[in-house]
């Protein structure tokens, strides 16, 4: 598989109270085409900053991000970011939200395409609802469908399900896996939930505390659908938690 994302030696510092605060200290990683990579790290370790840099929302101080061999400086529709707080537009209906990114004429019947993705994530019948009428889990589905509708090559997910309750979060993982079986995407997931990473990813990178570097890499060789209770998965979880110092 060809490398989709190549991140080389990214560094980022912020200035707070005239003190330089290094947040990301030299992170390099690659994500192969179609691969699902999860980055786990403790809260406040600079995961989100790293994600914003890779997705193109923040400039890096040093190093560079290559997507398909091209330097990434700005966000674009080839890589859609789904973040913790969500960004479904509350003033647009579900269908209008799903049609938001469908620009130009190459998408054919936009409403039909939007409805197709609504059905794919289990939103059939809610096309004309407004976000304030939906639950948190439903909103995540809208967010996911809106991203999938533009057929992005990469999905950047920054703790996408952490605002949901445990049960709904579990359900959304299964849903995401099911959707990814139907439409193959390269995914970069950031999470502090080791279970989530093991259930979803092909490979897991463990980030150190701030300033963050990549501390360890684990392959996840289990077939889907995965049972987190299997002895192999439990052993992997313990190994990752040990790296995180828990």
């Amino acid at each position: 598989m060809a490398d989709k994302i190549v991140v080389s030696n990214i560094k980022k510092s912020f200035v707070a109270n005239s003190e330089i605060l290094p947040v990301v200290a030299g992170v390099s990683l690659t994500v192969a085409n179609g691969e699902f990579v999860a980055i786990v790290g403790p809260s406040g370790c600079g995961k989100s900053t790293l994600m914003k840099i890779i997705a193109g929302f923040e400039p890096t101080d040093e190093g560079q991000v290559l997507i398909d061999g091209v330097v990434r400086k700005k966000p674009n529709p080839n890589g859609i970011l789904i973040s913790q707080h969500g960004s479904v537009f509350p003033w647009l209906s579900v269908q209008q939200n799903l049609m938001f990114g469908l620009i130009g004429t190459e998408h054919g019947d936009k409403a039909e395409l939007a409805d197709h993705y609504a059905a794919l994530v289990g939103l059939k019948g809610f096309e004309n609802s407004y976000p304030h009428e939906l639950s948190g889990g439903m909103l995540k589905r809208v967010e996911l469908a809106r991203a999938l509708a533009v057929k992005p090559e990469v999905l950047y997910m920054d703790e996408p399900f952490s605002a949901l309750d445990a049960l709904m979060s579990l359900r959304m993982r299964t849903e995401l896996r099911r959707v990814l079986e139907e439409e193959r995407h390269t995914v970069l997931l950031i999470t502090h939930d080791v279970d989530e990473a093991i259930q979803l990813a092909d490979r897991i990178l463990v980030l150190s505390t701030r300033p963050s570097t990549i501390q360890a890499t684990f392959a996840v060789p289990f077939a889907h659908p995965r049972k987190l209770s299997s002895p192999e998965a439990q052993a992997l979880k313990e190994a990752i938690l040990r790296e995180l110092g828990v």
Partner: protein
Amino acid sequence: MRAKELLPSLAVLSLLIALWWVIVIETNSAIFPTPLQVVTATWELVEDGSLWQHIGSSLFRVGTGFLLAVCTAIPLGLWLGRVDGAYITLNPIFQILRPISPIAWIPIAILWFGVGNASPIFLIFIASVFPLIVQTAAGVHTIERRYLRAAENFGVSRYQLFRQVIIPAVLPEIIVGMRISLGVAWLVVVAAEMIALRSGLGYLIMDSRNAGNRYDLVVAAMIIIGVIGLFLDGLMRLLEKLKTIRWRYGR
């Protein structure tokens, strides 16, 4: 439910009217009218048709000035909200102009526009344009970053950014701004009409006083002004019920 909520207000209002009546009779006031005299005076205006003429003139002036202000303030406010350079440059100027009472502009309005309809329209424009500009720009500034990020991520055009993100996001603020502006506009038209002109509710008040101390007409006009102001505010409140802005007011 609605009628029940109104009941306490109506009770206090009746009490006030009763108190007014008693005091006027007890003090044997020769000039200050009783509520009944005010009602009779109002009926007099209705019968000779001049009431509708006065209300029409005032509403026409408010409507024109307010519409001009809306057409100016919304584009300007959106621009100021989006372009930091423009905001930094122009905001201090608006902040200086805004606290100047529209009444203070009356001499200048007369100088520039004479005593026709243009003067009060100009004053209403001045009064209502600044709150709306400030409110619109502030609304743009409070749009949450995550929505702007999403729009940037999907690579939408400037036109789509304005039409589908910025304008709907700011609409609730704009409607609040319009309510404030229209309230101020109505306040000002009455004051502006007291100075000159030959029609309008403000003119009616000054003319009734000058033409033989007709305080029954003065109070009648005051009450009509209040009722119309309430009605205009109710009209603006209807806008808050629009489906596209209901998201702002929770579930």
